[in-house]
């Protein structure tokens, strides 16, 4: 295993340093968060803890990336 991979593992073991919301709250807020992002507004300030959760939860991060890409594609 390369050192980079170990860094990823340590990151996943420790998780985000700041306060974060959970998976259920993330799902509830994800649509609003993405639309704020697409509109160029400060989504992190509007929904504190969601970005930190995406940093700590690969599954929610994937779903955020997909919703963002889908909405971005429609807006283009």
């Amino acid at each position, binding site marked *: 295993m390369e050192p980079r991979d170990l860094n990823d593992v*340590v990151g996943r073991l420790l998780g985000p340093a700041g306060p974060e919301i959970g*998976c259920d709250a993330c799902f509830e807020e994800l649509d609003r968060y993405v639309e704020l992002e697409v509109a160029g507004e400060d989504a992190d300030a509007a929904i*504190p803890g969601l970005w930190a959760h995406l940093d700590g939860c690969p599954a929610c991060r994937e779903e955020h990336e997909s919703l963002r890409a889908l909405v971005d594609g429609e807006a283009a």
Partner: protein
Amino acid sequence: MSGATLVGEVSTAPPKPALPPDLDQESREWLHDLRAGGGVREAAVARLHALLLKAARFEVSRRRATHPHLRGDDFDDHSQQAADDALVSVLRRLDDFRGASRFTTWAYKFALLEAAVKLRKRAWQGREIPLEDDAWSSLLAEGMEPAALAEQGELVATLKVAIDSILTEHQRRVLVALAIDGVPIDVLADRLDTTRGALYKTLHDARRKLRAHLEASGLAPDAMLEETD
């Protein structure tokens, strides 16, 4: 300002707010038609299913490269099943739509979730969750330079001792499976007969305990990340 509950806080169900007066016309029409009767509702449900199928196919297409074992028919089956399940969820939760986004964005997330979860579970079908000892040993790969191996070995040993000494058996199992073995959270939730939300709470608590323990031991957790760069 969001009312989202931070992990570790007690969640209370807020009263359902009325739809915002500036809700876009298309979203209003979706709600109106889905709550109507007869043919109007039937047509709206069919349109909604088509919308969800588009989102499910989008997700499946994005993940296709990471699922080489699946054939074309499998992908379409996954998309259809995800759209069917998402349709049930959206219709069941229609009253939960608060108008915080467009209706279509709100609906899309259900289809993306269903498709993503199905793909993760399919990828782990028939696979065992690795044993904890195997997970730790996998961090020290063969072929590394002796100096790098010694440095990484020291870091891994520090983490393992901390995790073994402060976490409960359940916390340790969850943390190792998710963080080291890379088991998807939905798959682990299924195997442990729990929910993704409950499992993430366990992961969050384990991470907090680990961070606090390392700090109390004079180790700066975030500096450990930099050391492995």
